Protein backbone atom coordinates (compact mmCIF):
# COMPACT_ATOMS: atom_id res chain seq x y z
CA UNK A 1 0.00 0.00 0.00
CA UNK A 2 1.63 3.23 -1.11
CA UNK A 3 0.99 6.53 0.56
CA UNK A 4 -1.42 8.82 -1.29
CA UNK A 5 -0.10 12.03 -2.80
CA UNK A 6 -1.37 15.40 -1.63
CA UNK A 7 -3.50 15.63 -4.77
CA UNK A 8 -5.20 12.30 -4.00
CA UNK A 9 -5.85 13.50 -0.47
CA UNK A 10 -7.50 16.66 -1.81
CA UNK A 11 -10.10 14.46 -3.50
CA UNK A 12 -10.99 12.76 -0.23
CA UNK A 13 -14.00 13.93 1.74
CA UNK A 14 -13.71 13.06 5.38
CA UNK A 15 -16.79 11.76 7.18
CA UNK A 16 -15.45 12.89 10.53
CA UNK A 17 -12.93 15.49 11.59
CA UNK A 18 -10.99 15.57 14.83
CA UNK A 19 -9.46 18.72 16.25
CA UNK A 20 -6.27 17.79 18.10
CA UNK A 21 -4.77 21.21 17.53
CA UNK A 22 -2.09 22.08 20.08
CA UNK A 23 -2.32 18.73 21.86
CA UNK A 24 0.76 16.70 22.65
CA UNK A 25 1.43 12.97 22.34
CA UNK A 26 -0.39 10.69 23.15
CA UNK A 27 -3.63 12.74 23.21
CA UNK A 28 -4.18 12.97 19.41
CA UNK A 29 -3.91 9.16 19.13
CA UNK A 30 -6.02 8.55 22.24
CA UNK A 31 -8.77 10.78 20.79
CA UNK A 32 -8.42 9.14 17.38
CA UNK A 33 -8.89 5.66 18.85
CA UNK A 34 -11.99 6.80 20.70
CA UNK A 35 -13.57 8.45 17.64
CA UNK A 36 -12.70 5.63 15.22
CA UNK A 37 -14.42 3.25 17.62
CA UNK A 38 -17.72 5.09 17.07
CA UNK A 39 -17.33 5.26 13.26
CA UNK A 40 -18.53 2.66 10.76
CA UNK A 41 -16.22 0.61 8.55
CA UNK A 42 -15.31 2.44 5.35
CA UNK A 43 -15.62 5.95 6.80
CA UNK A 44 -12.74 8.40 6.54
CA UNK A 45 -11.38 10.44 9.43
CA UNK A 46 -9.35 13.63 9.21
CA UNK A 47 -7.20 14.54 12.22
CA UNK A 48 -5.87 18.07 12.51
CA UNK A 49 -2.81 18.26 14.75
CA UNK A 50 0.25 20.37 15.45
CA UNK A 51 2.41 17.70 17.12
CA UNK A 52 4.85 16.53 14.46
CA UNK A 53 4.98 13.05 16.03
CA UNK A 54 1.63 12.31 14.44
CA UNK A 55 3.34 11.88 11.04
CA UNK A 56 4.94 8.67 12.30
CA UNK A 57 2.48 7.75 15.06
CA UNK A 58 -0.65 7.66 12.91
CA UNK A 59 0.67 5.21 10.26
CA UNK A 60 2.03 3.06 13.10
CA UNK A 61 -1.31 3.14 14.90
CA UNK A 62 -3.16 2.27 11.69
CA UNK A 63 -0.84 -0.65 11.02
CA UNK A 64 -1.21 -2.12 14.48
CA UNK A 65 -5.00 -1.68 14.56
CA UNK A 66 -5.59 -2.84 10.95
CA UNK A 67 -6.94 0.48 9.74
CA UNK A 68 -5.91 2.10 6.44
CA UNK A 69 -3.57 5.07 6.61
CA UNK A 70 -4.26 7.42 3.70
CA UNK A 71 -1.61 10.09 4.15
CA UNK A 72 -0.77 13.49 5.57
CA UNK A 73 -1.02 17.08 4.36
CA UNK A 74 1.49 19.41 5.96
CA UNK A 75 1.27 23.20 5.95
CA UNK A 76 2.79 25.82 8.26
CA UNK A 77 3.27 23.44 11.16
CA UNK A 78 -0.24 22.01 10.84
CA UNK A 79 -0.74 18.36 10.00
CA UNK A 80 -3.90 16.98 8.45
CA UNK A 81 -3.80 13.21 8.66
CA UNK A 82 -6.27 10.93 6.90
CA UNK A 83 -7.26 7.35 7.60
CA UNK A 84 -10.03 4.97 6.63
CA UNK A 85 -11.62 2.69 9.19
CA UNK A 86 -11.14 -0.84 7.95
CA UNK A 87 -11.05 -2.76 11.22
CA UNK A 88 -14.38 -4.00 12.52
CA UNK A 89 -15.26 -3.64 16.18
Amino acid at each position, binding site marked *: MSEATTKDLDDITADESLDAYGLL*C*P*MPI*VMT*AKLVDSMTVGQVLEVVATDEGIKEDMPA*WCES*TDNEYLGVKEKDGEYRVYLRKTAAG
Partner: protein
Amino acid sequence: MAEASEKTADIVKMESKNKVTIVIFSGELDKVLAAFNIATGARSMGKEVTLFFTFWGLNVLRKNKAKNTAKGWMKKMFGWINKGGTEKLPLSRFHMAGAGTSMMKKLMLQHKMPSPEEMLMLSKEMGVKIIACTITMGIMGIEKSALRDEIDSYAGVVTYLAEAEKSSVNLFI
Protein backbone atom coordinates in the same frame (compact mmCIF):
# COMPACT_ATOMS: atom_id res chain seq x y z
CA MET B 1 5.82 -35.88 18.64
CA ALA B 2 5.58 -34.54 22.14
CA GLU B 3 8.27 -32.04 21.27
CA ALA B 4 6.32 -30.84 18.23
CA SER B 5 3.13 -30.27 20.19
CA GLU B 6 5.16 -28.47 22.83
CA LYS B 7 6.47 -26.15 20.12
CA THR B 8 2.95 -25.49 18.84
CA ALA B 9 1.92 -24.64 22.39
CA ASP B 10 4.81 -22.19 22.57
CA ILE B 11 3.70 -20.48 19.36
CA VAL B 12 0.12 -20.16 20.59
CA LYS B 13 1.48 -18.66 23.80
CA MET B 14 3.60 -16.17 21.84
CA GLU B 15 0.66 -15.05 19.73
CA SER B 16 -1.50 -14.34 22.74
CA LYS B 17 1.14 -12.01 24.21
CA ASN B 18 -0.66 -8.79 23.46
CA LYS B 19 -0.42 -7.17 26.88
CA VAL B 20 1.60 -4.28 28.22
CA THR B 21 2.74 -4.38 31.84
CA ILE B 22 4.42 -1.47 33.60
CA VAL B 23 5.88 -1.42 37.11
CA ILE B 24 5.70 2.12 38.42
CA PHE B 25 8.32 2.23 41.16
CA SER B 26 8.97 5.99 40.98
CA GLY B 27 6.65 8.60 42.41
CA GLU B 28 7.93 11.53 40.42
CA LEU B 29 5.80 13.67 38.16
CA ASP B 30 7.84 13.25 34.97
CA LYS B 31 8.35 9.50 35.30
CA VAL B 32 4.73 8.87 36.22
CA LEU B 33 3.56 10.88 33.21
CA ALA B 34 5.81 8.82 30.94
CA ALA B 35 4.20 5.65 32.30
CA PHE B 36 0.66 6.99 31.80
CA ASN B 37 1.52 8.11 28.25
CA ILE B 38 2.68 4.61 27.36
CA ALA B 39 -0.36 3.08 29.07
CA THR B 40 -2.94 5.23 27.27
CA GLY B 41 -1.08 4.90 23.96
CA ALA B 42 -1.12 1.12 24.30
CA ARG B 43 -4.82 1.09 25.15
CA SER B 44 -5.40 3.16 21.98
CA MET B 45 -3.74 0.34 20.07
CA GLY B 46 -6.15 -2.13 21.62
CA LYS B 47 -3.63 -3.72 23.98
CA GLU B 48 -4.50 -4.78 27.50
CA VAL B 49 -2.56 -2.70 30.00
CA THR B 50 -1.72 -3.36 33.64
CA LEU B 51 -0.02 -0.78 35.85
CA PHE B 52 1.57 -2.15 38.98
CA PHE B 53 2.22 0.67 41.50
CA THR B 54 4.89 -0.12 44.06
CA PHE B 55 7.10 1.75 46.54
CA TRP B 56 7.26 5.48 45.71
CA GLY B 57 4.91 4.82 42.81
CA LEU B 58 2.16 4.08 45.31
CA ASN B 59 2.11 7.82 46.09
CA VAL B 60 0.23 8.28 42.82
CA LEU B 61 -2.67 6.27 44.22
CA ARG B 62 -2.85 8.04 47.57
CA LYS B 63 -5.84 10.30 48.01
CA ASN B 64 -5.07 13.98 47.62
CA LYS B 65 -5.14 15.68 51.03
CA ALA B 66 -5.66 12.36 52.83
CA LYS B 67 -5.33 12.22 56.60
CA ASN B 68 -2.20 10.56 57.98
CA THR B 69 -3.59 7.37 59.48
CA ALA B 70 -0.29 5.47 59.82
CA LYS B 71 0.32 3.73 63.15
CA GLY B 72 3.67 3.93 64.95
CA TRP B 73 5.91 7.00 65.02
CA MET B 74 8.22 5.98 62.17
CA LYS B 75 5.39 5.22 59.76
CA LYS B 76 3.61 8.36 60.89
CA MET B 77 6.70 10.44 60.17
CA PHE B 78 6.98 8.87 56.73
CA GLY B 79 3.38 9.85 56.15
CA TRP B 80 4.22 13.48 56.91
CA ILE B 81 7.33 13.79 54.74
CA ASN B 82 5.99 11.55 51.98
CA LYS B 83 2.47 12.86 51.55
CA GLY B 84 1.69 11.60 48.07
CA GLY B 85 -1.36 12.21 45.93
CA THR B 86 -1.34 13.09 42.22
CA GLU B 87 -1.09 16.80 43.04
CA LYS B 88 1.99 16.39 45.26
CA LEU B 89 4.38 14.56 42.92
CA PRO B 90 7.79 16.26 42.57
CA LEU B 91 9.99 16.39 39.47
CA SER B 92 12.84 13.86 39.36
CA ARG B 93 15.23 16.71 38.55
CA PHE B 94 15.12 20.44 39.40
CA HIS B 95 12.34 20.11 41.95
CA MET B 96 14.12 22.93 43.85
CA ALA B 97 11.89 22.81 46.93
CA GLY B 98 8.84 23.00 44.69
CA ALA B 99 9.86 25.98 42.54
CA GLY B 100 11.04 23.87 39.59
CA THR B 101 8.03 21.59 39.75
CA SER B 102 5.64 24.51 39.89
CA MET B 103 7.29 26.05 36.82
CA MET B 104 7.09 22.73 34.96
CA LYS B 105 3.39 22.47 35.81
CA LYS B 106 2.81 25.95 34.38
CA LEU B 107 4.64 24.99 31.17
CA MET B 108 2.65 21.77 30.91
CA LEU B 109 -0.58 23.72 31.27
CA GLN B 110 0.50 26.13 28.53
CA HIS B 111 1.11 23.16 26.25
CA LYS B 112 -2.25 21.62 27.15
CA MET B 113 -0.46 18.59 28.56
CA PRO B 114 -2.66 16.51 30.88
CA SER B 115 -1.70 16.41 34.58
CA PRO B 116 -1.02 13.12 36.43
CA GLU B 117 -4.55 13.38 37.89
CA GLU B 118 -6.07 13.71 34.41
CA MET B 119 -3.89 10.90 33.05
CA LEU B 120 -4.90 8.60 35.91
CA MET B 121 -8.59 9.25 35.26
CA LEU B 122 -8.12 8.89 31.48
CA SER B 123 -6.28 5.58 31.95
CA LYS B 124 -9.06 4.33 34.19
CA GLU B 125 -11.72 5.41 31.71
CA MET B 126 -9.84 3.60 28.91
CA GLY B 127 -9.77 0.36 30.87
CA VAL B 128 -6.19 0.30 32.15
CA LYS B 129 -5.93 -2.12 35.08
CA ILE B 130 -4.50 -0.54 38.24
CA ILE B 131 -2.85 -2.70 40.89
CA ALA B 132 -1.53 -1.46 44.24
CA CYS B 133 1.36 -3.31 45.88
CA THR B 134 0.40 -4.63 49.30
CA ILE B 135 4.02 -4.98 50.46
CA THR B 136 4.58 -1.23 50.16
CA MET B 137 1.30 -0.56 51.94
CA GLY B 138 2.52 -2.71 54.84
CA ILE B 139 5.96 -1.11 55.16
CA MET B 140 4.74 2.46 54.91
CA GLY B 141 1.61 1.96 56.94
CA ILE B 142 -0.68 3.02 54.10
CA GLU B 143 -4.20 1.74 54.63
CA LYS B 144 -6.78 1.10 51.91
CA SER B 145 -8.80 4.05 53.22
CA ALA B 146 -5.90 6.36 52.29
CA LEU B 147 -5.85 5.04 48.72
CA ARG B 148 -8.09 5.89 45.79
CA ASP B 149 -11.17 4.06 44.54
CA GLU B 150 -9.63 3.73 41.06
CA ILE B 151 -7.55 0.73 42.21
CA ASP B 152 -8.72 -2.54 40.63
CA SER B 153 -6.86 -4.87 42.95
CA TYR B 154 -4.34 -5.11 45.78
CA ALA B 155 -1.68 -7.69 45.09
CA GLY B 156 1.92 -8.84 45.31
CA VAL B 157 4.80 -9.78 43.06
CA VAL B 158 3.33 -13.04 41.78
CA THR B 159 0.29 -11.26 40.34
CA TYR B 160 2.63 -8.90 38.53
CA LEU B 161 4.77 -11.77 37.19
CA ALA B 162 1.71 -13.67 35.99
CA GLU B 163 0.62 -10.57 34.04
CA ALA B 164 4.16 -9.96 32.77
CA GLU B 165 4.32 -13.48 31.36
CA LYS B 166 1.45 -12.62 29.04
CA SER B 167 3.02 -9.32 27.98
CA SER B 168 5.15 -8.40 24.99
CA VAL B 169 6.03 -5.04 26.53
CA ASN B 170 7.16 -5.01 30.14
CA LEU B 171 8.62 -1.86 31.67
CA PHE B 172 10.01 -0.72 35.00
CA ILE B 173 9.75 3.02 35.57
